[in-house]
């Protein structure tokens, strides 16, 4: 698990191509011979950066650093996306200027089109209106875009600095107890930006078992940047509790899955690259690629999502679903039956679903439970599609696990609420 000369030395040869001439040991000794004759290392004086590089992977000094990094991540996220962009600018723009303007110029407040595109004619803010052009644009541009922008920026800096593999070494022992390898922290952190690249990143894990556990945990317990952004806006005082429930779920179900899922969890060596100063050109390129990808792919999705949900409302489908599932929602999960609507929306976009929740009357604990439910009950459609690409059998199994976990964990959260006397 540390830096080591020959990562493959103690590995069993899995495939030996027919055209291979040497066996593994012979090849390694040839490598040694070649290296000896071509490399000359001068006296290299260790720099402070090298020492700090080592300090960040040792538990005693590395854990404080990890705490500080996570702190900075969340703090910058909240200041930029929350205080500056959304609360400071977009809320004012959308609620005081854009919404009244839309309500004024769109003809006939009683028409279906008005309901679909502008929403509630009496609404005075863009969360309540819930029209495609009012709430849809506000959520996509006003809330989620700043959130993902700053998230992508910090993610790019983390990726390029070389800190991620160090974090992996640091949490290796812990994650091994969950049947995962330390490197699983990389997809997890990436998943906080967006689950889609995170699912692809699970390929770095060695065995089917590890990949399956990781993918399932990602789909269930890791909220994406868009969702975090909207949570920060809608329920700023409860985000911490939601994250706590998700984290507990991640650890507990990770542990259970590692016991249940057949397969092995071999040790692999993590290659720890040196720290680099992130390069401006590469950061801006990544930021631009990902942000434009978000605008092109996600924004239309949010708008269509609002349209789709509104159509379902008009068609009475959501009302019907709420009534059918009312017993489960009210008695098992302890949330209002109207949560059915947001849960449908969550399949399209989780950010949309959380925004929709803000319009339902409920207690703080119910809100926390509902947001956790939305996070865990099903991956969004984009995540679903990449999971499908990784193999449909795994996807089916993951979905099975997912429903079981959502059902059990939702009930447990309700029970905890009852015990604490807050549900």
């Amino acid at each position, binding site marked *: 698990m540390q830096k080591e000369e020959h990562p493959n030395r103690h590995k069993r040869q899995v495939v030996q191509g027919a055209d291979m001439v040497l066996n593994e040991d012979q090849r390694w000794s040839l490598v040694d011979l070649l290296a000896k004759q071509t490399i000359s290392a001068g006296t*290299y*004086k*260790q*720099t*402070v950066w090298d*020492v*700090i590089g080592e*300090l*960040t992977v040792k538990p005693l*000094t590395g854990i*404080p*650093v990890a*705490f*500080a*990094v996570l*702190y*900075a991540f*969340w*703090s*910058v996220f*909240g*200041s*930029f996306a929350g*205080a*500056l962009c959304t*609360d*400071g*600018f977009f809320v*004012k*723009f959308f609620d*005081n200027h854009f919404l009244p303007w839309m309500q004024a110029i769109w003809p006939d407040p009683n028409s279906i089109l008005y309901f679909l595109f502008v929403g509630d004619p009496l609404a005075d803010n863009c969360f309540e209106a819930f029209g495609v052009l009012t709430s849809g644009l506000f959520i996509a541009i006003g809330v989620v875009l700043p959130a993902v922008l700053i998230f992508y920026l910090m993610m790019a800096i983390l990726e390029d600095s070389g800190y991620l593999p160090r974090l992996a070494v640091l949490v290796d022992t812990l994650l091994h107890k969950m049947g995962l390898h330390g490197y699983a922290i990389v997809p997890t952190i990436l998943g906080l930006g967006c689950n889609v690249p995170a699912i692809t990143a699970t390929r770095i894990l060695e065995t089917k078992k590890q990949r399956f556990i990781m993918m399932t945990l990602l789909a269930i317990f890791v909220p994406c940047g868009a969702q975090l952004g909207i949570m920060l806006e809608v329920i700023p005082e409860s985000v*911490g509790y939601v994250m706590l429930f998700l984290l507990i779920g991640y650890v507990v179900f990770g542990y259970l899955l590692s016991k249940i899922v057949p397969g092995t969890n071999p040790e692999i060596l993590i290659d720890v690259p040196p720290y680099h100063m992130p390069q401006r050109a590469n950061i801006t390129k990544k930021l631009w690629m990902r942000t434009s990808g978000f605008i092109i792919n996600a924004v239309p999705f949010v708008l269509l999502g609002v349209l789709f949900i509104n159509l379902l409302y008009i068609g009475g489908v959501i009302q019907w679903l709420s009534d059918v599932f009312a017993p489960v929602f009210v008695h098992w999960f302890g949330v209002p039956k109207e949560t059915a609507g947001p849960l449908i929306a969550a399949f399209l976009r989780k950010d949309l679903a959380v925004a929709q929740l803000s319009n339902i009357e409920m207690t703080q604990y119910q809100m926390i439970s509902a947001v956790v439910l939305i996070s865990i009950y099903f991956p969004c459609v984009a995540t679903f599609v990449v999971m499908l690409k990784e193999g449909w059998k795994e996807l089916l199994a993951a979905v099975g696990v997912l429903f079981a976990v959502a059902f059990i964990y939702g009930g447990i959260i309700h029970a905890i609420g009852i015990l604490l006397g807050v549900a």
Partner: protein
Amino acid sequence: MNTEHNTAQIYIAALGLVTMILGLVDILVWIGFTGGIEFGIMGIAGDDFFRWAWGGLVVFLGGALMLSGCRNVGNIQEFSKVLLGAALVWTIAACDIFAMICENIPAGEEAPEFLNSFAGFVGGFAPPYAPAVILLPFTLVIAYFFYAWGFADES
């Protein structure tokens, strides 16, 4: 062991200790909910878990790192610990300052205009400051040592 290192060691030890105490106070105010304390230009609101409990813990650990490395600051291993400890304090302070900037650029929620006036923007930086921000100038001395003692020179 020269005298400059000796004085520096005392300075770093004292700074590390003060940093640890202030980090601890952050956490205690959060736990105790004394409604926040103010002490000169320093203020600890203690109202928010993330800022005061978590952030306070980072400050505390930063102080601990400085203290753990202060005995032999001429040594690169030990000095790196001190520098890392200072960096933790800088992180919290930088986040606080960034938060102030972000909060002061827009006009208040009630105001009709979008941008804050210049006076309003500057006024937003008035004290009280969190302990990490107050510690910032004192910990920057460690950055000075980093350059002055030649740790920054490439090989």
